[in-house]
């Protein structure tokens, strides 16, 4: 793969997306289906017009075939994200968000745009949120130590983003570190 060497060490975003797609999402099915056994587990039954919870990968697959409507998770709404951005910019801590929010919002915005309310606004809000959090992560560099780093509420994608650099930096710090005697 033509990735820079630093990135080769960590997971690629598509891989993270794949992992995130295991999360469950609510859908309104448009076709009936009996409970079906997959390798990941048994999901269903789908009985329109009742909602069902199925993994995102399956929901996207059904969505592609126009066989379901995906109900956006609660956090993927303009009001919620606006509130989060406000928290993010006022508090020093990272705000609490679903661990895979970046991946899930991306796949849903790509695959189920018509099921989301105001997708363009959502995109900008997510971008804002991402930038606010990145800025915080950068600020967190100051606290970087040789042994550990505490950044609670960091999401999977963000961890992945900082991992190559932080590991390297921490390795250097470790070399410089003189253990107390």
């Amino acid at each position, binding site marked *: 793969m033509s990735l820079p060497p630093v990135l080769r060490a960590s997971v690629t975003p598509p891989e993270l997306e794949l992992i995130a797609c295991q999360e469950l999402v609510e859908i309104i099915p448009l076709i009936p289906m009996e409970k079906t056994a997959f390798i990941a587990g048994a999901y269903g039954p789908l009985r329109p017009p*009742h909602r069902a919870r199925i993994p995102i990968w399956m929901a996207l697959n059904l969505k592609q075939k126009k066989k379901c409507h995906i109900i956006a998770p609660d956090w993927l709404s303009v009001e919620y994200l606006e509130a989060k951005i406000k928290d993010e910019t006022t508090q020093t801590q990272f705000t609490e968000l679903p661990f895979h929010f970046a991946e899930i919002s991306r796949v849903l915005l790509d695959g189920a745009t018509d099921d989301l309310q105001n997708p363009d606004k959502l995109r900008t809000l997510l971008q804002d949120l991402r930038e606010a959090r990145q800025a915080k992560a950068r600020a967190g560099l100051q606290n970087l130590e040789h042994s550990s780093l505490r950044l609670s509420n960091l999401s999977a994608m963000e961890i992945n983003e900082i991992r190559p650099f932080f590991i390297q930096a921490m390795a250097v710090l470790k070399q410089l570190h003189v253990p107390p005697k």
Partner: protein
Amino acid sequence: MNSKAVLKSHQPHTEGLTSLAFSTDGLHAFTAGEDNIVRIWTLSENTDVEPPMATDADDPITALCVYDDGWFSGTTAGTVRHYDKDSAKMNGHFTDVGPANAVRCIAIDPRRKTVAVGSDGLNLRLVELDDPKKTQELNRNAIRKVTWHPTEPILVTCGLNGDVVVWDVTTANPLKIFSNFIPTVINLPKRLAEKSPNSSFDFLYDCSAVWHPSGKQFYLASRARDIACISQSTWTRDSTIVDRDAPGHVTALAVSPNGAFIASASFSDSSSTVYIWDRVTRKIITQHTGTSKTVVTQLAFSPVANVLAWTDSGGEFHRWIDPIQADLVVPISNPIEGLGTMFDDDDAEADIVIGGDNDEPMDDVEDNVSEPEQDWLDDDNDATAAGFTRSDFVKEMVSITQAQPPFQPGATPMQETKQLLSTNRLGYIEVTAPPDSEHHLVDVRFFDLSRAKVSFKDEFKFHLGVLGERGALFACRPQDSRPALVQYRPYVKDSTTQWTYTLPRDCTVLGIAAGGLPLTSSAKDVADLDGFGNIVIATTQGDLTFMSGTGRERRIIALGGDFVSMVAGHEWVFVVHRAGSTTIDGSQNLSYTLINLDDFSVRQRDFLPIPKGHTLKWIGITEEGAPAMYDSTGRLHVLTKYRTPHHASWARILDTNLLERKIGKDESYWPFAISGSQCLCFILKGMRTYPTFPIPPHYELPIEMPFRTDNKPEEKIERDVLMLEILRDGLDDQLTNEEISRTEQRVDKDLVLLVQSAIQKSNIARAVELAKLIHNSRALDSVIKMAEFYHLAGLKEKLQTLKDIREQSEDRLVVARDKRKEWMRPDPLPRSLGAMDFKASGVRPFQDFGPPPTVSRPGLAPAVPVKETTRFTASTTVDIRPTPVESVAGSPPENKRKRDEVEEVSSSFDFAAPPLKQKINPFARKVGQENNRSNLFARKSDSTALQKSESFFDKVDAAEDSVPKTKRLGASKSKEKEKKDGPRQMTLFGMMSSAPRSDKRVPAVQPTPDITMADASQVETQPDLPEEWEETQPVDGTSLLDETQPVAE
């Protein structure tokens, strides 16, 4: 514009501010102007005649107000004069606000007791009509316009500074202040006197807040040049009426007496245009462009006729007669064909209104234009309005509760161009009225897209529709020369099954319902077998017409009172009707009847429990088949025990006001289906009463009985018990079914947990009570164990007794069935004939959730000596062999029946094979049976030699039997397939040997005796099938000696 519309214009006044008012009986109109004159027009007469004048004023008249027994005029000098009814005779000076303060507005309250006078002065003055000396002042500077709420003591004032204030007159406090809402007048009134017309235009505008006759909202021309609609309940802007085709400042506003239309006048490009809007669709129906450079200063609808009048700054008085098409006004009457229209889309607009205003449940009822006066109390169910009723409405006071019009559950009124005719568990019917077209488009959209889509062009303009299980039913009003029609479209591809039922000419359809058994996907092909369900039609002739799904009329049942709504399940139709009239204290007085579709017997009949002052919002049928209802209080009820006559009761299963999600939200719910523990609904934001297009995704409200004590687990148990009851009632002769047992188990589990928590709280009585509810004795056992665990010997004893009693007494399921039977329900439940035999067949692909079958890996198995001889060895020595292979090996004999004879013979000789096989070959039967008998207990011990030799001989016989070789070959090949149970490597060997096998028959036989010498049981390896022998040999050679010998001996 209507071709019949006529505009009559006069110029009775000089240029400047003019005022206009209609008398309450609509016979006279009053106009006033800056020429100090009030003219009284008698509208019925020829208006070319000079009308009488009131010339008492010395100053320009700025305000007019007419009530039942007289009228008022106000002047710039601050004088308010009181005149006799419809005459120019002055009654006297009513009040005076001071010479410096010009009167700007006079308004009389709906009770005709208080007159509000707005002026340039500091205060708004309220004067008692009977005693003008009694006054009250509301402190508000420079009032331009004042209006009263149509029924309540609420005032809206519009100030010079742009503020709009809503006052509660009883407390003299503002209820709400809208700052800078209307345009601020920069030009001070003084300048008006200077007669600089252009600069004072703003002040000429009639900026008053115009109330809708229902009193639920008022309209205002806002700063943004649109018309704001402000709701009374929240005092917030509800919606906006705006159209880019109506530019400019809104200079005057009026609402038609029935509340269906709004007139507005706009001034732009130095000319005025009068528009008439449909209130519901918010679209312009018609418009009229007036002369240039004049501003319309006041607009008014005639209270009795289809006339819109206005006066303008040019001092002219215009009357627009019949501005609104007749078919809009009276929706029932036939539309006039071939009208010359000024605007192309006029006809389309007309149709929207026809569809629209009738179906809006609580708003404009269709008679509201033809009898305008009654509409003062339209939309109003509050008895509090009684005090404000005018004297000539005594009749209305007697029955002040507006009767709820008939409605179709899950229908919405026409919004813009779209409408829902029906929404239920299956889907919804969407009607689109494309502009510029004579027909509607009907789309039946199922939630389950795999069902066939129904979509057609609707020339009848169906106004009612219902989505049945077996077909979609539509009905339309009589139009033109065509009578009312009902059309049924079953969900089958064959369009010939569709039929139309024509009603008599004077008859209209009030409601329709279509019931039937649910269509199962497996039984689609034989759908006809179950029929197309049942159709029920409610008509204005006071009847319910029952029809079969193919259009056969079955019965016409008379229905007393007014029909309100109905919905059909597969067994019965649930009809809501009003037995008499509404009661004076606000009750809708609704009853329901449950009529069996099969034999027309009435199963239940009772009142519908709707509180006073509330209306029925929705009725439906749960997935389990129980009738359900939802009223405007936000509570959901289901009917329980509805199968047994007189047993039914309405159980409250949900109170949407108590929902957690509703806290802090302004929303309501629009249910359309209930299934299991879920209520499917659309969530309506704000004050909406129905879902708007595009239809949002629906929401599932979890059903939760509104118990007052906060104990979720107990509530859940009671809910499950309710569900169990409904399910058990649906049982016929059987004791239980899968779903019931499953629910019972679930309930038991919850009960055990509850018992545990009761024990922990040492509430022994509660524990015993809960234990009594447990269905299965196993769960009872676990409770007993629990008592033991907690060292509660007493409780344990009690529970043990309980268990003993239960064991001794009759089975509870039998008891329940007998109880059901007692109520004599002779007819069996309708069952889907088509669906019956289709479900039985075995496991479907991907539906098996059990653990996967163990893969047999003999290579990995522990080295146990295995007798891997034939398919038959397994059946004989099942008990000893530990490997899983054996169980598989046991089955082949059954499949072997189709093997050809020779092979069967040979095998039957060798062992006590399944007797069935032997039947095939009569030749071999005797021997086989003998063998059977003799070998029953000692199969292997003594008879081995005999078997050996016999099989050998038999084999030789068989060889000599002139059986064609090809046949044998085929047999052996199939044999080979059959041998899958053996280890894999054997087949390998078999394949290798397959080539020589076919021609080397005799040599292949020869090894058999060799083996038999070594071991008797070895013979069992199908002596006639050398390939098998070859297969088995490498494995068995030694191991069989160890394994089978002990058995044999």
